[in-house]
């Protein structure tokens, strides 16, 4: 047996992975080879040394501390997810409210003031609450602008009426979602 191989086998022997035949071969080699005998003694002693060292116990309040941090992080995550979902919801609502506005743009050319409100609507996308109120203002204004405005008003009002239950639904679904745990990011 080569010393190199014997050396590898020593490690395996320490982990109980040699067959009896292999163990015997190793033993025979070690008895005849000084260097390997030395190495075997050393490796075995290292193993014994490690086996004698006890486990370090975790600190006393460990579980309590971890759970406190878990609660904090969980609250933060819920908050972030909630805000993200709300923003997404409002963005979708805005897009839905936008469609009739875009479709009826012909009427707006007759009323430049309405067009100006439209532009402000676009520019304030970042402030979605603001744009929502802009839509309401638009409705009120367009009501005085003729039947085209009424159609527009009808669309926007309908969307807003649907918005409330929709947001509630999303909120409940996301709460349930978080409770169930997200599997695969569904």
């Amino acid at each position: 047996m080569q010393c190199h191989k014997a050396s590898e086998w020593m490690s395996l022997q320490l982990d109980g992975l040699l067959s009896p035949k292999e163990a015997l071969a190793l033993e025979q080699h070690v008895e005849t080879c000084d260097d390997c005998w030395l190495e075997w003694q050393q490796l075995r002693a290292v193993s014994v040394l490690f086996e004698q060292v006890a486990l370090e116990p975790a600190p006393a309040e460990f579980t309590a501390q971890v759970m406190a941090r878990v609660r904090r992080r969980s609250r933060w995550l819920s908050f972030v997810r909630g805000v993200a979902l709300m923003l997404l919801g409002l963005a979708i609502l805005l897009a839905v409210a936008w469609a009739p506005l875009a479709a009826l743009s012909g009427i707006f050319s007759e009323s430049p003031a309405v067009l100006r409100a439209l532009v402000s609507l676009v520019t304030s996308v970042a402030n979605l609450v603001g744009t929502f109120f802009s839509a309401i203002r638009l409705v009120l204004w367009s009501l005085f602008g003729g039947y085209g405005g009424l159609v527009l008003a009808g669309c926007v009002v309908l969307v807003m009426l649907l918005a409330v239950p929709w947001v509630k639904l999303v909120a409940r679904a996301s709460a349930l979602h978080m409770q169930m745990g997200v599997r695969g990011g569904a």
Partner: protein
Amino acid sequence: MQRRDAAQRDGRLGRVGDSREEQAWALRAQRGDREAFAQLVEAYKGPVYNLAYRMLGDSGAAEDAAQETFLRAYTRLSSYDPSRKFSSWILSIASHYCIDRLRRRRGRNVSMEEIQSSRWIPDERPEPEQEILGTERGRAIQAVLDQLPPQYREVIVLRYWQELSYVEMAELTRSTESAIKSRLHRARQMVAALLAEQGGGLSFQERDQRREAQNAVSQSF
């Protein structure tokens, strides 16, 4: 929990048994049951803390690392595959975190080239009194561990404190069985060499005399 307490009293905790109870907790925790997660923390705080301590060598750092491990586990619960053992999963998180920390630490790690061939010949039968000095020995061991490069330290810790098999270690460290085999062997050799650097040893003459006596007495296999 009684089984584990008994094991801890013995001074060693082998693997935490992945009982059906614990797997049930894991599933409930995945569904958002925080109490179940707390049970898991309680069950695995020992192994996780110990792994962190042996890897990082410092109780403060170990506590941080152990807490962070459980936090990561909590946020990643959705990615835990219930068909796997929870212990492997949580230990793998702990191990990877510790390795990352070690790599970012500035500090001297012993390289293979620096380790000389050793002159140290250990005692065949250590005196009983020496075994009782657990803390002393523990600290000495930790000092040696602290000098090993991260990946070698990892396999030693997993083998001797978590008592994982090669297969389990390979899975946990995301490498192969043969890589683990050679890494563990290397690690043992490095520890032997480090101990030789630190301590004295017998002269060659004494070694030969001892060997004579030994051949006449016991089997080492």
